[in-house]
């Protein structure tokens, strides 16, 4: 019965099959500051049995366990980094929704900025190349008017005004 599920029209929707309520009242810490930190941390941690859901959003039992674990560590006095380090040591980097910057994630992190930079360089190169191409036969065929002709045209139009 899993196949029609997986192949159903909206995979993202169909895989989140349980009513999602995520954080339940009994988990919430009394200290609002600690609870706030717990919520912020939860949003960056993955529920490993779900598809692309944070433990803050997921209603799976595993997500609940992880939420409680995060809160236990915070109550015990861990810093945010210590909690994350602890979870990574236990569950691997898969638990992080935002991968750490490292060699194996270099391409991932660099993709956007590199694409932007490459595009910028290509545009600048195209702009700089153009004055040379403007004089070429090919460019003349396209623009039909040479610069000289365009100047004369402008002068003529200017006179008639």
């Amino acid at each position: 019965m899993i196949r029609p599920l997986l192949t159903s029209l909206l995979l993202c929707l169909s895989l989140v099959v349980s009513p999602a309520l995520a954080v339940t009242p009994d988990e919430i810490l009394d200290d609002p500051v600690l609870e706030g930190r717990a919520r912020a941390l939860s949003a960056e941690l993955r529920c490993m049995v779900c598809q692309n859901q944070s433990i803050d959003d997921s209603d799976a039992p595993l997500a609940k366990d992880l939420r409680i674990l995060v809160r236990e560590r915070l109550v015990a006095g861990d810093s945010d980094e210590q909690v994350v380090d602890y979870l990574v040591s236990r569950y691997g980097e898969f638990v992080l929704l935002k991968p750490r910057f490292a060699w194996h994630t270099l391409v991932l992190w660099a993709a956007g900025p590199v694409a932007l930079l490459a595009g910028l360089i290509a545009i600048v190169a195209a702009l700089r190349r153009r004055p040379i191409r403007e004089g070429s036969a090919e460019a003349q065929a396209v623009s039909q008017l040479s610069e000289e002709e365009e100047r004369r045209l402008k002068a003529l139009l200017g006179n008639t005004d």
Partner: protein
Amino acid sequence: MVIEFGHYALVLAFALTLVQSVLPIWGALIKDERLMAVAPPVSVTLFVLVLLSFVALTGAYLNSDFSVLNVLENSHSAKPLLYKFTGVWGNHEGSMLLWVLILVFFGALVGAFGRNLPADLRAVTLSVQGWVSAGFILFLLATSNPFTRVANPPLEGADLNPILQDIGLAIHPPLLYVGYVGFSITFSFAVAALILGRTDAAWARWVRPWTLLAWGFLTLGIAMGSYWAYYELGWGGWWFWDPVENASFMPWLAGTALLHSAIVMEKREALKVWTVLLAIFTFSLSLLGTFLVRSGVLTSVHAFATDPARGVFILGLLCFFIGGSLTLYAWRASTLKQGGLFAPISREGGLVLNNLFLTAACAAVFVGTLYPLVLDAVTGEKISVGAPFFNLTFGPLMVPLLLALPFGPVLSWKRGDLAAACQRLYAAFGLALVLALVAFWAWGMEMVLAPLGVGLAVWVMAGSVSEIVTRVKFFEIGPKRGFARLVGLPGSAWGTAFAHFGIGVTVLGIVTASAFQEEHVRTMRPGDTVDLSGYEITFDGAAPRRGPNYTEEVGHFTIRQGGAMVTELDPSKRIYTARQMPTTEAAIHTVGFSQLYLSLGESRGDGAVDVRVYFKPFITLIWIGCVIMAFGAACSMADRRLRVGAPKPARKRPSAPVAAE
């Protein structure tokens, strides 16, 4: 019998796609008019055949014919009629049939209405469309046949996935597919241009309306999907950066870039080669999206192995069309003539900047979506890439784009004057600044980014309004003549203004709903009241109820404001009997543009239940903005200049009021 007829029609359609794939392009290459003339009637007949086979499958669903495997697996006799109908595309086979139906529909449109295109361009375009159709109809017939029968049909079906039993399924997939598949036409035009080695005026004129059409529908489709997820999934999120969402978002980003570069190409004959490449990219991303969703590769790399035939087939199609078109591009792009020179500060320059940021953003989303798959396949290392990553990489690329956006339409073609452009935007900038300061003052200094976000959204919105106002010189010539000029503005000017205004509206919704949302999670007993954002929400109790194919526990809440009743809300938890699958049905009360959102969690015994209450300020603006954007696309398409046949010299028209100075 009807099912076999539908199956037969699909096989016949496949045969016809082969005819369409070969004869017209052959005719174009040997300059045989008769062979080229084959394309239009074949493309229309093809559409009729696929439509017949789609109707046959729909009939099986409406009659609950459980001797058809597809109906058996995805339908139930007790299902409401609407969901019997929409269930046709609520599964893999049926949704691929809908995909193909829309694909051949677009082919038929070009066949039927492409009379003012040069004959060879039309023939080659339809042949390319034929290749795509052939590939996907073969995919259906070979690996995903919706017409398979079962020998001993049971009395009852397995029912449709409950989450899909929603009005959203009636609207979202067709809209999304018209968007996805609509880009196939620009793709076919681009490939035809490469094969013929020329991009003439007719080509340039045809690309933009098709792109607008596909883009408008894709925008609506994504917005609809987002709203559906928002009210159905029960925790009030509206965008999850899920790979399936990204699969539809990437063609949207590329399509938005294409839309803008097509303007430069149409008006100024520049950026032709780039536009061809973007057209190829956009449809390639649509195909990639189809592959990602359809092959099951996203759930895990191993799900791929559960049905290798399907995944491998569609991967083959993907490689053929993307690899083939890019190879063709590398080989033939140099034959296309470049034209239209322009200075960096000009309308063209602005549109190039738009393309730069949109393409980079698209690349970031692309790598983010596929990187975990590739890393896992290559090194076996498993990482997750989720919302926090995308917010950090995608967001910063959008900010400069939105900052620059209002400048684009006020710059003139070829050589723009930045100082003059700034002058026209003073008012918009002032308004944005004032509202950002008001936001700072209202919400305090601890939230720095949100007021800036509000300012950015207002800047984009006010910028698009002031573009229209200064364009008709509203304040200089008085309101009466101003209105006359407003009416006379070309559709594409309105289109630009509406689409840009819409993006500002969406950004405003995103900023306010994310930054100022209020939330309350607690266990409530009957009679309990919680206070949230000035509302008193009282839980009156819960009761069981029976629906046609589900049972549900309905909570009853009374919402008051200052003691006066505002409304009553009934969120529920359902169990769909056939699949024993639970869903949450959130209850939503809309106040102005904001929403109060209630959903039920676990029951705690003695009538107590976990309740989650949200107040989401201005959240509906997110989707309203998308509707405005799509309306902008419709305005642009209504521009009569797009409907004038390009090969004939433009008719002399009486000057529009705009031109009459």
